[in-house]
């Protein structure tokens, strides 16, 4: 049975001539405990998709269902990790996570909140940075705080909006491992947005490309049947990995070229002019 | 954050400690200023106001020589910005009393300007004002002034000398502007008297024109005393009537020439008074007497010529008059400099005690009332009794007498310093135009002027 379901979801911004369709006819079904990666080019509505699921915005048509119930707004059953961390800079690590915990579990006493908070900060290996403010942390550490905050809320669904895109390759790789490790612990349902095919192959059960906009929709899905743990050292020798990587990459490139051609025809109509003379002037 | 507050604390601590006074290590003798006074003082801590003029001297002297403290009064003396401010702050009770223009309590009683019941038990001084004109006006005026044998100008200089200059400005279409310090100030009435005596119309006050410039040949406007020289130098006014040291200041800075003093306009005319509200005097009768006692003693001390240099030193302190001592000395020590180098002896230029100067005469109050009527500040005609009554509501010789009597008993002043009087000075003709003034008949006096209202 579908745990998270998007049915014919369309979303536009603006009105009249300004109206821009971002997403159209999105249909997606995610089972409980599944790790889904949505892959796409930037500016194509990936974040809009995540925000629809989170309930920060609502579809123009179609519906988003969680556990069979329509989503009417943000809730603690879904927690989100933003691309730019969205940490409150005036709170330290403990404060950022703790504030969320207090909000979601209002009945807990201070000790319980504290223990829970520290527990989740420990999960992302940030215990030594408990008292640090976001500005004192590196990008990777900040994102780990953000992940800890999302996890600590004990959500049914985790929504990861390009959480690793702003990081350098090494940090990114480390965090991928960490996400895998945490996910394996309690197998939460995860919808993650990414711009990297490799990342999807390392993390996801399924990879679904988002086509180019305007009016982007979901492309054909790719099931990733690679057993976990997926060791990065040996992964590029894995046939399944190689096949999927080529296939998805091909699909993405083809889509990109189609787009380029379209836009080139639309945009540039060169005039048929020839320069009169290209001979250099004689120096007197 | 914590560190910052520490630093602040450390930085501020000595300042705070010093403010509190701390424990003193000075071993000054704790001389008991315990009052020999038999009076039960209702309000020992007092604040008095003054305007930076030498005739505030009795206040400064009473404080500096400890006369106030000997009466059990602890007085703070504060300079004020202008006469309106003085009046407001006394009426509102922020000042317990103040050095004031004689006209101010009278006008407040008569209903010109802000109304209030103000009273005075003490007249601070006689004379002390001068009229100064700019160098340019003086150079045009001087040929009209008669000269005596040794080439010096003959005094008193009447306004006849300035008349052609005023006319010249008038025909050139330039209004002739002069400054005085306040609409009900002695200076206003003096400069008006001086001008009108020569047939120059200084302008009437009407309900519509509260500047007092109706039909004026000379436009008079208000300028605070300390700013007179600067305003003259800026060319905004061509002359002014003001108290000292602001006439002598003009001589010293070379920006103007004093042409006459109010001693010449009206010999021994009353000048400033010490004013408290009626309410204060009623609620604190003993305090009022004690204040008057201290001020009478200060006046007596001031009129001893040997004390004048010391008085000059005190007045030149920045929190009193604050002008250079030499400037103050010029008028305080019996001389007055007119044109540069033309220093004349004027022993009675500043009288603080002689001629019963401190006694608040009803006749003085009535003179101010007649002038207010003459120039239209009192718009309608009043019966003679009104003048007497108003004067008696403002001037409080009873307090003065009580204070003086106590001083006589204490041996501080001789009994002969208390005048035998009903409060009216005898009729006098000591005016620049020789018109006789008899306070008993104010209506006749008002009618004796050529220019001005008549009843």
């Amino acid at each position, binding site marked *: 049975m579908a745990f998270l379901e998007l049915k014919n979801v369309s979303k536009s911004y603006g009105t009249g001539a300004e109206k821009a369709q971002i997403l159209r006819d999105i249909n997606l079904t995610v089972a409980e405990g599944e790790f889904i990666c949505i892959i796409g080019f930037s500016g194509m509505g990936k974040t809009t998709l995540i925000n629809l699921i989170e309930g920060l915005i609502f579809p123009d048509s179609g519906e988003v269902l969680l556990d069979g119930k329509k989503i009417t707004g943000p809730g603690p059953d879904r927690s989100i990790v933003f691309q730019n961390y969205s940490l409150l800079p005036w709170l330290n690590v403990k404060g950022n996570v703790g504030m969320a915990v207090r909000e979601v579990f209002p009945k807990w006493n201070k000790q319980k909140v504290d223990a829970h908070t520290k527990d989740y900060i420990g999960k992302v290996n940030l215990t030594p940075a408990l008292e640090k403010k976001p500005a*004192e942390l590196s990008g990777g550490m900040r994102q780990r705080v953000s992940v800890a905050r999302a996890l600590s809320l004990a959500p049914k669904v985790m929504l990861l909006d390009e959480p690793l895109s702003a990081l350098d390759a090494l940090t990114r790789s480390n965090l991928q491992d960490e996400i895998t490790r945490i996910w394996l612990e309690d197998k939460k349902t995860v919808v993650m947005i990414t711009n990297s095919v490799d990342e999807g192959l390392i993390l996801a059960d399924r990879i679904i490309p988002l086509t180019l906009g305007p009016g982007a929709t979901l492309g054909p899905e790719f099931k990733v049947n690679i057993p976990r743990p997926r060791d990065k050292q040996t992964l590029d020798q894995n046939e399944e990995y190689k096949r999927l990587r080529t296939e998805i990459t091909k699909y993405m490139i083809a889509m990109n070229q189609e787009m380029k051609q379209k836009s080139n025809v639309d945009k540039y109509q060169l005039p048929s002019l020839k320069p009169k003379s290209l001979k250099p002037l004689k120096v007197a | 954050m914590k560190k910052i507050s520490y630093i602040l604390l450390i930085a501020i601590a000595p300042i705070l400690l010093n403010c509190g006074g701390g424990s003193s290590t*000075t071993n000054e003798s704790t001389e008991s200023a315990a009052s020999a006074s038999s009076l039960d003082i209702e309000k020992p801590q007092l604040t008095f106001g003054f305007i930076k003029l030498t005739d505030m001297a009795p206040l400064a002297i009473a404080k500096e020589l400890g006369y106030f403290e000997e009466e059990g009064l602890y007085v*703070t003396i*504060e300079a004020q910005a202008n006469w309106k401010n003085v009046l407001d702050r006394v009426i509102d009770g922020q000042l317990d009393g103040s050095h004031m223009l004689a006209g101010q309590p009278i006008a407040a009683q008569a209903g010109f300007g802000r109304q209030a019941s103000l009273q005075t038990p003490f007249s601070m001084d006689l004379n002390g004002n001068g009229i100064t004109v700019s160098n*340019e006006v*003086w150079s045009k005026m001087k040929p009209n002034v008669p000269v005596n044998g040794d080439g010096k100008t003959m005094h008193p200089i009447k306004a006849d000398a300035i008349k052609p200059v005023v006319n010249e400005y008038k025909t050139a279409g330039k209004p002739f502007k002069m400054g005085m310090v306040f609409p009900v100030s002695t200076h206003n009435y003096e400069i008006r008297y001086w001008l009108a005596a020569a047939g120059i119309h200084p302008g009437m006050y009407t309900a519509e024109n509260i500047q007092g410039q109706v039909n004026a040949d000379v436009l008079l406007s208000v300028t605070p005393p300390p700013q007179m020289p600067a305003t003259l130098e800026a060319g905004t006014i061509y002359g002014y009537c003001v108290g000292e040291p602001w006439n002598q200041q003009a001589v010293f800075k070379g920006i103007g020439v004093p042409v006459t003093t109010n001693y010449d306009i009206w010999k021994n005319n009353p000048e400033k008074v010490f004013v408290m509200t009626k309410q204060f005097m009623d609620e604190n009768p003993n305090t009022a007497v004690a204040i008057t006692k201290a001020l009478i003693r200060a006046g007596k001390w001031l009129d001893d010529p040997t004390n004048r240099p010391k008085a000059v030193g005190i007045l*030149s302190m*920045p929190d009193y008059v604050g002008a*250079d001592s030499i400037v103050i000395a010029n008028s305080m020590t019996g001389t007055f400099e007119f044109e540069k180098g033309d220093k004349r002896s004027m022993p009675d230029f500043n009288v603080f005690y002689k001629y019963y100067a401190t006694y608040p005469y009803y006749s003085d109050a009535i003179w101010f009332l007649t002038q207010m009527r003459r120039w239209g500040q009192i718009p309608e005609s009043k019966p003679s009794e009104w003048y007497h009554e108003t004067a008696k509501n403002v001037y409080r010789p009873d307090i003065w007498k009580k204070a003086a009597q106590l001083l006589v008993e204490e041996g501080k002043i001789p009994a002969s310093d208390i005048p035998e009087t009903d409060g009216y000075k005898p009729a006098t003709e000591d005016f620049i135009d020789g018109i006789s003034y008899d306070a008993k008949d104010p209506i006749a006096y008002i009618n004796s002027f050529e220019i001005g209202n008549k009843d």
Partner: protein
Amino acid sequence: MKNILKTVGLSFAAIIAFLLLWTAGSKALYNKAVETTIEKIRTTQSEEAAIETKKRIESGDPSSQPNSLPSPLFVWETAELLVKDAAEVMRDKRAFKKKMAETNEKLEAQGKKSIIYTGRPSFLDQIITSLENILWGVVLAMCVSIPIGILTGLSKNFKTATNWFVQVFKPISPVVWFLLVQMIVNTIMTDPEGNNAFVITFISVGLCAMWATLVNTAVGVSSVDENYLNVAKVLRLGVGKKIVRVVLPAAVPLIFTGLRITVSVSWMVLIAVEWLSQSPGLGGFVREEFQNGSSSSNAKIMVAMFVIGIIGFLLDKLMATIQGMVSFEDRQKASPLTIVRNLFVKKQAA
């Protein structure tokens, strides 16, 4: 370290140049003033009077010196005199307290108010009074402008309703504020014991200076980073919690930027307002010396000018330090060293 040396060295050189220029300027102005005075007397009075005046001025007689720009040396001497005078007043105060101890005990026993010092305030007292005035002014500005700023930033309707008000009142000069406040305060506060001058001063200063904080708070509150608001949304914070937990903390840096401007503006208008309101303080000191017009008055005014400038500078640095501490981007711990360093090194914008 090298940088600090360079900064100090350059500042020092600039100060020397300034002093030299000032000395030369004051000399030139003095000569011109003397010449003008003598020439004026020569043309309007007589040759003899002119010679007399010249002699008098040359004799160094202080009272006939023209009121031109005083030289640095004279200003320095005057400053020393003021310091000495402050010490004297302090001694005087102590002596008075000692002298009155007995009397005051008696008065207190009778349940009456004890007698307080009646002497004149020293220059130091004036500085402290001014600092008190500005402190209260800034506190008032904060109390008024921050809540209004928050409302303006949060509610479009409130902003629309009050925008004209802010736009109209913002440019009003301190003098007019003073008159307005005076009208109101003097009507309300009729208690003669009340310190109206002080109340009028700090309210005028507060009203004059609060606009920067108001506008900055409004901007800070209305332009909170979308990401922070998302956190509030995701956690489903109610309006009240959202404001307290997210909006206000996020606006703090801008609020403090506004406060820093408010403090400098307050200090700037304080002097003028004190002058007008008859309040003691540095403004009162300048007014009094302006009125005195004695030979040392201009120098005293110059001393006050420098003191005002230096205190203004220190206040601004203090606020800059606080501002740095509350800013999220620049997370240097404020240590004594940073404060000292901040005095010399202009902080780079984050």
